[in-house]
């Protein structure tokens, strides 16, 4: 997937939604921002640091300390309990704070499911664990890739509310990818990634 974005910025505490056709490169864009992928050129600056200039280890550290990533398929670790999943969300960046993990799980209404494994949870509950895990480290940036894509309407609304509310409380910027008009309608700033990705336009017939 080729991504060529002229410029994109997100202020501290700002919420932006990205829409775009499937295969337009939205996930790749999020992976570049999170440092999972390294760009071939250009610059990605997060919290003042240039991601492109960082080594892989440096990008891991930045992701561990400053970026929370919520996936459409939740990507929970199946062999770990809810509490362990959340604690693993913060453990690579700083000391794992069990009290904080417990508070977050309480906040998402899962304090009674601490020792349950993902397979023992409903889809909505799994997404709530994923949200808690992404937010546990108090990231400066939250990336959410179709976080409501696998949820029913009610769970989607709840999950979205939770993400936005927590980002607001912690001052984290939120970049959310969605196809859902109802979700997109709740954002003041919505960008069309098909328009942003110049590589896509160049290859279009």
């Amino acid at each position, binding site marked *: *997937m080729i991504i060529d974005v002229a410029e994109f910025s997100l202020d501290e505490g700002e919420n932006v939604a990205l829409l*775009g056709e*499937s*295969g*337009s490169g*939205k*996930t*790749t864009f999020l*992976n570049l921002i*999170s440092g*999972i*992928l390294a760009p071939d050129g250009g610059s990605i600056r997060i919290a003042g640091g240039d991601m492109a200039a960082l080594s*892989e*280890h440096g990008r*891991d*550290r930045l*992701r*561990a*300390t400053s*970026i929370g*990533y919520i*996936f*459409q*398929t939740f*990507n*929970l*670790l*199946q*062999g*770990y309990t809810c509490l*362990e999943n959340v604690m*693993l*969300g913060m*453990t*690579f*960046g700083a000391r*794992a704070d069990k009290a904080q993990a417990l508070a977050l799980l309480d906040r998402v209404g899962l304090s009674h499911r601490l020792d349950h494994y993902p397979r023992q949870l409903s889809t909505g509950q799994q997404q709530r664990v994923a949200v808690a*895990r992404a937010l546990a480290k108090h990231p400066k940036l939250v990336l959410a*890739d*179709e976080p409501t894509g696998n949820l029913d309407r009610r769970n989607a609304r709840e999950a979205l509310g939770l993400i936005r509310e927590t980002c607001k409380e912690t001052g984290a910027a939120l970049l959310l*990818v969605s*196809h859902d008009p109802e979700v997109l309608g709740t954002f003041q700033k919505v960008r069309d990634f098909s328009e942003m990705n110049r590589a896509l336009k160049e290859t279009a017939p």
Partner: protein
Amino acid sequence: MTLALIVKRSLRQHAFSTTITALSIALAGGLLMSVWVVKEQSQKTFTQVNTGFDAVLGARGSKLQLVLNAIFHLEASPGNLPASDYEYVKRHPAVKLAIPIAVGDNLRGYRIVGTIPELFTDVEYTPGKHFQLAEGRMFNPDAKEAILGSFAAHKLGLGVGDAFHPFHGLIYDERNQHAETYHVTGVLAPSNTPVDKVVWIPLHGLQTMSGHDPRAATDVSAVLVQLRSPSAGFMLDIMYNKQGNRLTFAYPIGAIMAELFQKIGWFDKVLALVAYLVALVSAAGVLVAIYNSMASRRRDIAILRALGAGRLFLSGAIVLEATVIGTIGMAVAFAAYAAIVSTVAVVIRAQTGVLIETFAYSPVMLWGPLGMIALCALSGLLPALKAYRTDVAGNLAPIS
């Protein structure tokens, strides 16, 4: 803490392969330690066991055969020597004590040896220890009486007051039963020496057993000798072995047994090689088990990387997991070792009467487990490299 959690969870997620792999490590480690300890202990024990004697005098032949026959009650006798030779060596100023033995009969496979009561009363089979009777009394040298070694008594199911008929020859054949009836008057306490597996009767009784050659009625099979000083041994060695050509003086017993171990040293090497190969194959098993599970681990690795875990950290977790499997395996290996060595000790005891010390410390108990664990850690390197190279984005599908 996180590293430990990741390793623990991974071991649990792959519990079956972990268990099988750890068991194979346990068997390999147990085998390696057993081969080593049995080799060490049997060499140590067999070169030290002399049942209180410095030398053996017997018919002309192999010194090793003489020692095996007279001390360990294995092998056939190289021949008899006349009573005069026994009387001569007994009176020799360099000799402190001489005990004659005569062999040639058995009781259901257990050797019957004729000797004099002094063997049990005057000899310290190890410093400070005499043979003791666990029950009953010593045989009367002029009667058809017997005392039994503890192992022989147990295996034959005989005790004080029981009677038996000896069988001719060293190998049991029920058609070769002698007419004489012997009565058991005593059972020896265990000494963990070859004496334990022998049925002891008076020397005269064996010499004059029905069917034996009456012309050899005063001959003895060997004379067990205690010397007054080590130099006396060399003197008698020259006298019998270099200057004489009729008898063999086997001295010192430990050195003769050490020669045996040197002769069968190649067998030790083959056993050790087999044990090393088994260890190597088991370590390779760790590699294969983890490597094969990498497909199912890729997603977890990608997720952990997305959460900020470094490549080296996750590779280290794989190596640690291999190390833990090795450590668990080697912990169980001690149980396997105990089982293997105990079984071998029972077999050696049954064959020789000698009890090897199965749980004595040996350096292999340190370097064996450490080496095996290091080998397992090494075998984790290839899967760790695969973890290091895991494509994170590709394993966090789906992509929008």
